[in-house]
């Protein structure tokens, strides 16, 4: 069984309401998790380059200004020191081509953002407790 002890996660998301929901849901599910929100891809990369404690899991929105989710994904995956970090794409799009591209570029999981708060919470709960072996 390959489960990760999640203590620290980061989200790159330019939509304020989505960022709020993410943080509210994570805080509700696991009170001790540190959640860092970056309002665009550039801010995420700046945070990662300066972080003393690397997040175990990074959530990426795809459509963001300055640096989009795919660019962040490539940058993170090209840095060997960040290899063990799980990357989860959180996107409103469910286009098969986009999902395929995300996996090809090194995403560990692709999740389509549900509209409902309850569904989003259930989805995040499963994501945080995922057995990553099953995804290999």
């Amino acid at each position, binding site marked *: 069984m390959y489960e990760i002890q999640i203590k620290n996660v980061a989200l790159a998301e*330019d939509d*304020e*309401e989505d*960022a*709020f*929901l993410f*943080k*509210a849901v994570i*805080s*509700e599910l696991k009170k001790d998790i540190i959640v860092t*929100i*970056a*309002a*665009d891809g550039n*801010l995420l990369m700046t945070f990662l380059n300066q972080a003393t404690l690397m997040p175990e899991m990074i959530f990426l929105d795809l459509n963001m200004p300055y640096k989009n989710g795919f660019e962040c994904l490539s940058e993170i995956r090209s840095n060997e020191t960040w290899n063990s970090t799980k990357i989860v794409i959180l996107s409103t799009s469910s286009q098969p081509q986009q999902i395929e591209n995300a996996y090809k570029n090194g995403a560990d999981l692709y999740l389509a953002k549900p509209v*409902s*708060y*309850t569904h989003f919470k259930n989805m995040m709960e499963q994501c945080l407790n995922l057995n990553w072996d099953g995804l290999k």
Partner: protein
Amino acid sequence: MDATSFLQQLRSQTARSHQLIEQNVSSQLLMSKHVTITHYAHYLKSLYGFVYGFEKMAFPLLKDYEVLQLDDRRKSHLIQADLTMLHHTAAEPYLNEELFNTHYQTTAAVLGGMYVLEGSTLGGQIINKHLATVLGHAIAGKTTYLMAYAGKTGSMWKIFLQLLGEAGTTIDKRDEIIDSAVHTFALLNTCLEIKYQFTEYEN
């Protein structure tokens, strides 16, 4: 458990949450000597989503508690009025309504949430005093939200506490009120954090 003991328990079990919200970077900035009109306006905007949503979605569950004078406790319009006076754009009700439906399904849960919002009217007086000291006449007449009940703050708080204390004498409601208050503190803390993050981004 009597009402007094319940209120003591509520205070003690929410003390940490209360402390966290005071330590929030946005709250710290508001209470610093470097606070500006812009900081204050962003602080108001960060609260609006929650206050508006709570009034719209949760207040109706308390409609039978006439003693509360619910209409007098509505404050979201005061935030908008202050922002207008500050020449800032209106705040957006940016929180998902389902969030309120999920968390405030019972009168006990709503009372727990109100404990936090009504308690903030006491803190509002302190913030107002601080802003008046630092910003002077620039905020005169622009703190109607912070000064919501003005001279009636004490009596409005006492009326609410009396009702809350009575509600908390039954064990099922007691736990629900406390859980909801803790949760409400956490949601407000998140509102402040996220808005701060996105405000920095806008600047």
